[in-house]
C-alpha cells in the first residue's frame, strides 16, 4: 500500500517530538483568571516537564496571546503552583493530564 503524501513529509524527529508531548491543565485563580475566558488553560508540554517548564510555557502563551503583557508576566513569575492541595516546588515533575492550579499573590480577609 502506498503511503499518503503527508506521511513522507513528517521526519522521524517530528514523530518523536509529537510522541514526547503530554497535556497539563492549569486551573486559573485570582489575577490569572484574566489569562483566559475559561477557568483553565490546557497546554502541551514535553514528557518529564517540571513546574519551571510550565511557567515558561505559560509565559510563551502570554507572549502569543497578550503580546507579553507586563502585568501578566509579573503575575506568573510571582505565582506558586498547587497539585492535590499541596503547594509544589519548581522542580516538581508533571504527569500526563495532571491538573495543577496557579496561585498568584494572595490577599483575602
Amino acid at each position: 500500500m502506498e503511503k499518503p503524501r503527508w506521511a513522507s513529509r513528517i521526519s522521524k524527529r517530528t514523530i518523536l517530538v509529537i510522541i514526547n508531548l503530554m497535556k497539563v491543565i492549569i486551573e486559573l485563580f485570582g489575577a490569572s483568571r484574566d489569562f483566559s475566558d475559561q477557568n483553565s488553560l490546557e497546554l502541551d508540554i514535553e514528557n518529564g516537564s517540571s513546574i519551571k517548564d510550565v511557567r515558561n510555557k505559560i509565559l510563551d502563551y502570554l507572549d502569543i496571546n497578550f503580546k507579553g503583557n507586563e502585568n501578566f508576566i509579573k503575575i506568573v513569575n510571582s505565582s506558586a503552583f498547587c497539585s492535590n492541595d499541596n503547594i509544589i516546588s519548581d522542580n516538581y515533575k508533571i504527569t500526563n493530564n495532571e491538573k495543577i492550579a496557579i496561585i498568584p499573590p494572595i490577599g483575602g480577609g
Partner: protein
Amino acid sequence: MLHTKIKNIKDRKLSIVEAEKFISSSDFGASIFFSGTVRNQNNNKSVIGITYDSHDSLVIKSFEEIYNEADKKLGIKDKAVFIEHAKGYLNLGEVSIIIAVACKHRDEAYILSRYIIEEIKKRSPIWKKEHYQNNEADWLKGNPIQYEKN
C-alpha cells in the same frame, strides 16, 4: 473545636449568629468576634464592591493548619474557633470574613483571634478584585505565597 467554610455569597451570607452558636460554651469565659467588611475606599479610589475568589480546598486546609498551630505555637489548647470566608461579589458593608474564637481567658482569646487573621492574610489562597465607580475593576496585588523553590 473548629468550624471552617467558604460560602458562596449567592447562596448564603455570613452570619455572626451562627458563629456565636458554634463557639458558645460554659467551658469558655472569653469570646472575640472579628468580621471584615467591604469598605468604600482603597488607594484613593472609590470602591463600590469586591469580588472574592478562592481555592476552596487549599483555603480550608490552611485554616485547619492555622488552628492546629495554635496548640503548638501559642500553647492555646482549649478553644472553639469559627472561620468563614465569603466568595463572589460583595457590596459595600457586606461581611467577607468572620473569625469567632472562644477561650478560657481573654488574653488567649485576643492573641488567638489576631493570630488567625494575620496568618490567613499571609497563607490562605484568597484573592480580591475591587470594582470602582467608573466601571473599572482591578485584582489587588497581594503577597506571593511562601513555598520551597527547589
